[in-house]
C-alpha cells in the first residue's frame, strides 16, 4: 500500500472520543416518551406502520421481558442500576432513509464529520449506513452491489419490503426469549441493518455502519440481520462512539447472522461508547454446512459491556471463530466472551480473547463451549490472556465447557500476566517515557490478534489503546 493511501486511511479513520463529546438540540418529531409499557411498544409499531405480525412479535417480546428476571445470579449487580422506567425507547426524526449524500441533513452531516466519517470513506467502503439515533439517516450503496442483488437496508425497510427474505430468519438465531435483553430489543427495536447477499456473491469490500447515541437517557435498540446465501462472502464493520451524558444510557442490540451452505460472514465491531453506557448486546451466528462465521470484537468504551458473540455450528464442517480484545479502564467493566454450540460432526471453533485492565478497571471473560450430542471429530480451541496494568486492576475468567461424543477435542487455556518491569526498564533506557513504553508493551500484547483485523481497524484500535493508556502510569 502506498504512503499516500496509508495517510488517507489514517485520516479517514480518526475517531477521537473527545470529538464525540457534544450534542445537538433535541427536536425529535416522534418521541415515545419515557418508560416502557405496552403503549410504548404499540406507539413504536404505529409510527413505523408495521404489519400485524411484527406488532405481535414486539408485544410478545415485551411480555417475555417483563417476566424474565435480571441475570444477577451470575452477572454483575451493576445491572440493578439500570432504571428501565427512565429510558426513552424510541426517537426518530421521521426521516425516510436518505439515498444520497445530498439528502442528508446538514447537522447530521456535521455530526459524522466530527466523528471522522468523511465522505472520502466511500472510496473504500462499498456502502455506508450510518445511524443517527434510531433511524438510518444516511444510506448509500454502490451501484454495482445493487446490480449483484445485494440488499442493504434498515430493519424496518427490510421487514416491510423484503419479508420473504428476512422473515424466515428474523428472531430465529436469537429468539426473543433468549435472555432479558434480547427480549427488550425484540420489543423496542428500531434501526440497524438488514443485509442479504445472494448465492455466490463475494463482496470484496466490507460494508460498514456507524451507530451513535444522541439523546440523553435514550436507549438504542438496533437490530441487525445478515443473511449470506450459499457460497457468498461478506464482511461487515460496525463502530460506535457516543457523546457523554450525566445519566446512564442503555444500548441493547441484537445481531443475527445466517451463513448458509459454504458462505462466509465476518462481523467486526469496535465499541467505544462513552463511560456511562450500559452496553448489553446479544450476537449470534448460525453456520450451515461448510460455512464460516467469524466475530471480531473490540470493546474499549462503556460503563458495563455484556456481550458474548456466539456461533451455532449447525451444519457439518462448519467453522466458528471469535477474536476479541477488551480494554477496561477506571470505572469500566468489560464482561465479554464467546459461545460455541457444536451441533454437527466435523465442526471446529476457535476463541482467542485478550483483555487489558487499567486502574480499577475490571475485565471478565465468560465462555461456553458445548458439544452436547453424539458428535464426531469436533474441535475447539480457546485461549484467554489477561494483562493487568495497575495493582488494583481486576480480571476474571469463567469458562464452561461441556463435551460428549467421539474423537472430539476441547482445549482451554488462560493466563494472567503483567507488563514486566524489565521490558519497561529496557524501553525507558532507549529513551521512551514510561507511558510510551507501557503503551508499546500493551500494543505488543494484542499485536498478534490485531494482525487478523482489517488494516484500517487495527490502526484505529492502536490509536484508541494509546489514548486509553494515557495517564495510566506514573
Amino acid at each position, binding site marked *: 500500500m502506498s504512503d499516500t493511501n496509508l495517510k488517507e486511511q489514517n485520516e479517514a479513520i480518526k475517531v477521537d472520543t473527545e470529538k464525540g463529546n457534544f450534542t445537538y438540540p433535541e427536536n425529535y418529531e416522534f418521541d415515545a416518551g419515557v418508560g416502557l409499557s405496552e403503549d410504548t411498544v404499540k406507539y413504536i409499531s404505529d409510527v413505523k406502520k408495521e404489519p400485524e405480525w411484527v406488532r405481535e412479535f414486539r408485544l410478545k417480546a415485551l411480555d417475555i421481558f417483563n417476566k424474565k428476571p435480571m441475570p444477577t*445470579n*451470575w452477572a454483575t449487580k451493576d445491572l440493578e442500576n439500570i432504571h428501565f422506567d427512565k429510558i426513552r425507547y424510541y426517537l426518530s426524526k421521521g426521516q425516510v432513509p436518505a439515498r444520497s449524500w445530498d439528502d442528508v441533513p446538514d447537522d447530521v452531516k456535521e455530526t459524522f464529520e466530527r466523528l471522522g466519517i468523511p465522505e472520502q470513506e466511500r472510496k473504500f467502503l462499498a456502502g455506508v449506513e450510518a445511524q443517527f439515533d434510531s433511524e438510518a439517516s444516511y444510506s448509500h450503496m454502490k451501484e454495482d452491489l445493487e446490480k449483484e442483488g445485494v440488499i442493504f437496508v434498515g430493519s424496518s425497510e427490510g421487514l416491510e419490503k423484503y419479508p420473504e427474505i428476512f422473515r424466515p430468519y428474523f428472531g430465529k438465531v436469537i429468539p426473543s426469549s433468549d435472555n432479558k435483553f434480547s427480549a427488550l430489543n425484540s420489543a423496542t427495536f428500531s434501526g440497524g441493518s438488514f443485509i442479504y447477499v445472494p448465492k455466490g456473491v463475494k463482496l470484496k469490500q466490507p460494508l460498514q455502519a456507524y451507530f451513535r447515541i444522541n439523546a440523553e437517557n435514550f436507549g438504542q435498540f438496533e437490530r441487525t440481520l445478515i443473511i449470506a446465501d450459499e457460497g457468498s462472502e461478506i464482511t461487515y464493520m460496525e463502530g460506535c462512539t457516543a457523546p457523554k451524558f450525566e445519566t446512564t444510557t442503555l444500548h441493547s442490540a441484537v445481531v443475527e447472522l445466517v451463513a448458509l451452505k459454504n458462505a462466509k460472514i465476518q462481523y467486526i465491531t469496535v465499541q467505544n461508547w462513552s463511560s456511562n453506557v450500559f452496553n448489553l448486546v446479544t450476537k449470534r451466528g448460525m453456520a450451515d454446512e461448510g460455512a464460516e462465521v467469524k466475530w471480531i470484537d473490540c470493546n474499549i468504551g462503556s460503563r458495563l459491556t455484556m456481550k458474548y458473540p456466539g456461533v451455532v455450528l449447525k451444519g457439518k464442517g462448519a467453522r466458528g471463530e471469535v477474536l476479541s480484545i477488551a480494554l477496561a479502564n477506571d470505572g469500566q467493566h468489560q464482561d465479554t466472551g464467546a459461545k460455541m454450540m457444536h451441533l454437527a460432526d466435523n465442526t471446529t471453533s476457535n476463541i482467542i480473547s485478550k483483555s487489558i485492565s487499567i486502574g480499577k478497571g475490571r475485565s471478565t471473560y465468560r465462555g461456553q463451549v458445548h458439544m452436547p450430542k*453424539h458428535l464426531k471429530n469436533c474441535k475447539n480451541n480457546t485461549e484467554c490472556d*489477561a494483562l*493487568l*496494568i*495497575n*495493582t*488494583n*486492576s*481486576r*480480571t*476474571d*475468567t*469463567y*469458562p*464452561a*465447557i*461441556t*463435551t*460428549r*461424543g*467421539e*474423537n*472430539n*477435542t*476441547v*482445549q*482451554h*487455556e*488462560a*493466563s*494472567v*500476566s*503483567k507488563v514486566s518491569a524489565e521490558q519497561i526498564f529496557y524501553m525507558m533506557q532507549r529513551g521512551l517515557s514510561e507511558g510510551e513504553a507501557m503503551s508499546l508493551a500493551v500494543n505488543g500484547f494484542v499485536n498478534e490478534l490485531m494482525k487478523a483485523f482489517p488494516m484500517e481497524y487495527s490502526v484505529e484500535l492502536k490509536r484508541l489503546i494509546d489514548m486509553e493508556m494515557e495517564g495510566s502510569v506514573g
Partner: protein
Amino acid sequence: MTTTLETPTTTSSASVPTWLAERRSAGLEQFKNVPMPSARDEHWRFASVGRLSIDGYNPSAAPADDVLQALDARSDLVSEPTGRSVYVDDTPASFKGISDELAEKGVIYLPIADALVQHPELMEKYFLKESTELGSQKFFGLHASSVKAGSILYVPKGVTIEAPFINYYWTSGARSAVFPHTLVVAEDNAQVSVVDVFFSETAENEALNVAVANIHAGAGANVFRKVVQDWNEKTVSFQLDTTVAERDAQVKNVAVNIGAERARYEAQTRIEGAGAHVKMYSLTVAEENQEFDQRTYQIHNAPNAVSDLLYKNALLDSSRTIFSGLIKVAEDAQQTDAYQTNRNLLLDPSADANSMPGLEILANDVKCSHGATTGNVDEDELFYMMSRGIPKRAAMQLMVFGFFEEIIEQVASDELAGNLRALIHKKFETKLND
C-alpha cells in the same frame, strides 16, 4: 420433607458444652433455612439438581458386633499407621491411639467425643468452625447438627510424624445417613499425613454421606492428606473440605474418587500466610450413571504463595463429571503463582464432561493460568501400540492407567499407591475387557 434428619440425634446432651450446642443449633437452622440447590445457582451449574434427594435417610442404630469386626478386618489399605480409626455407620468399630512417646510430645489423636471431654479448648477453637463457600452450606449445616463420628488430630509445634494416620468411614445399614468428620491441626513446623477412606459394606446398601474435613496448617507446617472415596453406587455423597494454610505451610491433598451414585466434592483452600505452597490433586473414574460434581476454590489472601491444582477424570458409559474451579487472588496477594488444570478423558460417546475453570484476579503482579482439555484416547498412540502387537483393549487400559499415574505417584507411598491401582483396575477390568 419426609426425612427425620431435621431431628438431631446427638448423644449425651448432658455433656454438650454451650459453644457446641450453639454451633449445632446454628447448623440445624442453616439446614432448615437454606433451600435445596436450584439449577439457577451458579454453584450448582451443570449438576443434576432435579434428581438430588436427601429424603428418607436416617442415622442408623449401632451395627452388630460381627459387622463391626468384619469391616474392621477389611480396613487394610495401610499396614502400619501411626493411628487408625474405623467407624461403621458413625459407630466406632476400632480405634488405635498413638504411642506414649507421641502423647508425651503433646500429640493428640482421639475420637470426637473423647476430644470434647479431654481438650475442650482445642475443640472450641477449631471444631465446626470452617465451612466451604462453594454451595453446600445447607449440607454443612446438616453435618454440624448431626456429626458424632470422626477423629481429631493435633500435632504440636515442631513435631514430625512419618507414618500416616488413617480413618476408615463405612456405611452398612439400610438408607443410613453418616456424617464423618476429620479435623487436622498442625502447629508451626509440624509434619503429618492423614488418609481418609470411605467404603460401603456391600454393593447394595443405600446411604447418604455428608463428610467434612478441616485442615489447619500452621507456619511452616507440612500436611499431607489423602482421600480414598470408594462408596458403592447406591450412595449419595457430599465431601466438604477446607484447608487453611499459614506462612510457609506446605499442604498437599490427593483425592481418589471411584464410588457413589452421585458425589459432590467441595475443596476449598485458603492461603493466609506468605510463602505457603498448596497442592490439590484428584483422579476420578466415572462409570454407568455416576455423577461426580467437583468444586474447588483456591483463595490467595497472602503474597508470595503458590497453589497448584490438577484434576483428572476418566469417563465411561453415560457417566457425568463436573469440574468447577476458581482461583481468587486478593488485592494484596502479589507475587502469587496459581495454577489449575482439569483433564477429561472420554472413553464413551455418551459420557458427559463439564469443565468450568475460573479465575478472579485482583492483584497485578501474579502468574496465574488455567487449562482444561477434554478428549478421547489418542488414536495415534493406540495405533502405535497395536502395531507392536498389543491388543486394542489392553492398549486402551495401558493408556488409561498412564493417564492416572500422574496422580497416583503423588500418593508417595508404595503400599497405598499399589492398593489404589488395584481399586482402579478392579473398576476398569470388566469395562475394558468386554
